[in-house]
């Protein structure tokens, strides 16, 4: 009946196939139904219609052969079976992330606006040393407050601060380690590539199984996994790009590896590391919006509301708010970066 039946009979596997047929409860294919209705055997298909021997096609020919959904099902079962062990290990390890996020959110929410806004402005001034930018940030924050989006923007900022800071704390050492070992670099780069290319939503699926949706660390992990990539990459690259001659001078004057790292390599790689931090912050921002699907607070929630309830205005205003936040974060870190690079101009 099916094209590949003969293959199985040639291979002498008919008995095995028979044994499977009884259990097979998969839906009958459309072609079979049509053939049954017509009451005639389907004429052997021409070579032009030869179906690809996919799992489903082979299943048709031989009942014992697994269908393709068995594959996805298998992966799912596999994951579920290790899930408990995995979350037993990961849960306590990642618990501090929840605490940090809760603390930051609490801090940003409970600090009164008349204190929070000046503090943020001072931070921007210290980092960027640009009065123009401070004026822009002041105007944006007051605008957020005026249109009652302030608390959402503050939540978004709180999440970004925590996640970006953790990305730097974890990512810089990883980058340093990679720059010192070619083997480690060769091993980590594919992981970074994967983290960067995997669609953002895909992270969320296994995370939902592992952690409860009510816990902040769920979205925290998603954001960190996504946003850590640039800071790791650029730390590694930055240290590898440090002038050979300067490294040689450090060796010639008898620096230890430790001195070399902190007195020469990291300072000279700083422009690149800062470029990585800038990108990490921008990627945290984009992920915090997506992560609102799994209860990340902030402007993303409003965007989601705009989509779900078709509230065009809310969606657009919060979308614009995210753009404004992006501009603020980008400008601030870029100015800091420019300052550092200018100091090292050769």
């Amino acid at each position: 009946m099916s094209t590949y039946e003969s293959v199985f009979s040639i291979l002498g596997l008919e008995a095995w196939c028979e044994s499977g047929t009884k259990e097979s409860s998969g839906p009958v294919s459309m072609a079979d139904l049509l053939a049954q209705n017509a009451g005639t055997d389907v004429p052997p298909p021409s070579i032009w219609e030869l179906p690809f021997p996919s799992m489903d096609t082979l299943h048709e020919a031989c009942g014992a052969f697994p269908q393709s959904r068995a594959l996805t099902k298998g992966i799912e079962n596999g994951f579920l079976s290790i899930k408990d062990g995995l979350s037993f290990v990961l849960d306590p390890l990642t618990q501090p992330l929840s605490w940090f996020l809760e603390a930051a959110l609490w801090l940003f929410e409970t600090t009164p606006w008349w204190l929070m806004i000046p503090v943020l402005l001072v931070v921007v001034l210290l980092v960027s040393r640009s009065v123009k930018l401070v004026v822009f940030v002041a105007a944006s924050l007051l605008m957020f407050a005026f249109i009652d989006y302030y608390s959402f923007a503050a939540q978004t900022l709180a999440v970004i601060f925590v996640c970006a800071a953790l990305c730097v704390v974890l990512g810089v050492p990883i980058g340093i380690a990679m720059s010192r070992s070619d083997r480690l670099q060769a091993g980590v780069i594919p992981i970074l590539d994967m983290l960067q290319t995997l669609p953002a939503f895909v992270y969320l699926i296994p995370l939902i199984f592992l952690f409860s949706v009510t816990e902040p660390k769920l979205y925290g992990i998603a954001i960190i996994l996504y946003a850590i990539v640039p800071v790791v990459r650029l730390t590694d690259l930055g240290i590898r790009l440090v002038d050979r001659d300067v490294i040689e001078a450090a060796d010639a004057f008898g620096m230890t590896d430790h001195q070399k790292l902190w007195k020469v390599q990291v300072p000279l790689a700083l422009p690149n590391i800062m470029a990585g931090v800038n990108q990490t912050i921008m990627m945290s921002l984009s992920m915090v919006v997506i992560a609102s699907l799994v209860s990340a607070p902030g402007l993303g929630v409003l965007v989601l509301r705009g989509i779900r309830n078709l509230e065009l205005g809310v969606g657009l205003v919060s979308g614009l708010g995210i753009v404004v936040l992006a501009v603020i974060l980008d400008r601030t870190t870029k100015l800091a970066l420019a300052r550092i690079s200018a100091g090292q101009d050769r």
Partner: protein
Amino acid sequence: MEAPTKIEIRNLYKIFGPDPRRALEALRNEGLGKPELLEKHNHVLGLEDINVDVKAGKITVIMGLSGSGKSTLIRHVNRLIDPTAGEIIFDGSDILKCSTEELRRIRREQMSMVFQKFALLPHKTIAENAALALDVRGIPRAEHIPAAEKWLDRVGLQGYGDSYPHQLSGGMQQRVGIARALTSNADIMLMDEAYSALDPLIRTDMQDLLLELQQELQKTILFITHDLDEALKLADHLVILKDGRVIQQDEPQTILLEPSDPYIVDFISDINRARVLRVRTVMEKTDATDGVNIAGEIDQEENLESVIAMAQGDTRKTYLVKDGSEEVGILRMEALIKSLVPTEASEDGIRSQ
């Protein structure tokens, strides 16, 4: 009178490639040269059987064209590069057998280095750069910055301590490089083409600065250059390197008068000999000065150029040569003129060998 040897380089070999030991065997057994080694065994011959004595308190210059192995050689002295075979005896012990700890101590306290591309730390001030060696040793800032400022003054950079390297010209940056080496207070200074990136006028200045400092400090200096004029000006001992091999080493005066290799003859053919050759090299050692018509007195360390200027071109004059106050010989202007004729005069020497 001979100065003691500070660093002895013995039978040093360096071969670059995946299996340098095997290549070394081949090199020794088959007597290959640099091109053959590359062609047959795909290894680069960096250095071949180098033997050099570096005298304490003297300037030893290593000269050779690009790719002759100068940088490779100097980097063996502080072991930035490990050799394939050979030894480097420094104060009686082999540097190549040092532990990491000992090596680090030697690099911190006994050797300093000046680099062709300056290699200053761009994020540190000039004073911090000059103080690098002290900082590395853990000497607190309050002590190392004044020490650095002192040497910065000495190399002519007073008041630049708080600037950054990129604010200085190349010549000034190299002065910082020299101040950095001097601040470390090490006996030995390794200078890898320290002046090659500077323009000619500044270069002359820096050479004079080095000679002036050297008179005062008497460091053991290993200086690398590809410029013969520079080599002749600075060297107490000149080592000429070609394709990783030493082809002649001697006092510069001797190399100039008795080049042992056609390659060196080519090299020295268009040099201003009057400026390099000194009275002591061409004088007649005699105390029979009676009956000779002495036109004046000259010091034996004067170069011939200044004698010619003194004689105002008169080739019949004869001068009394002195070493301090002692009479050591006479210099006839005819002999002087003869010594100025380059290559051909020395060519018989090569042919007769």
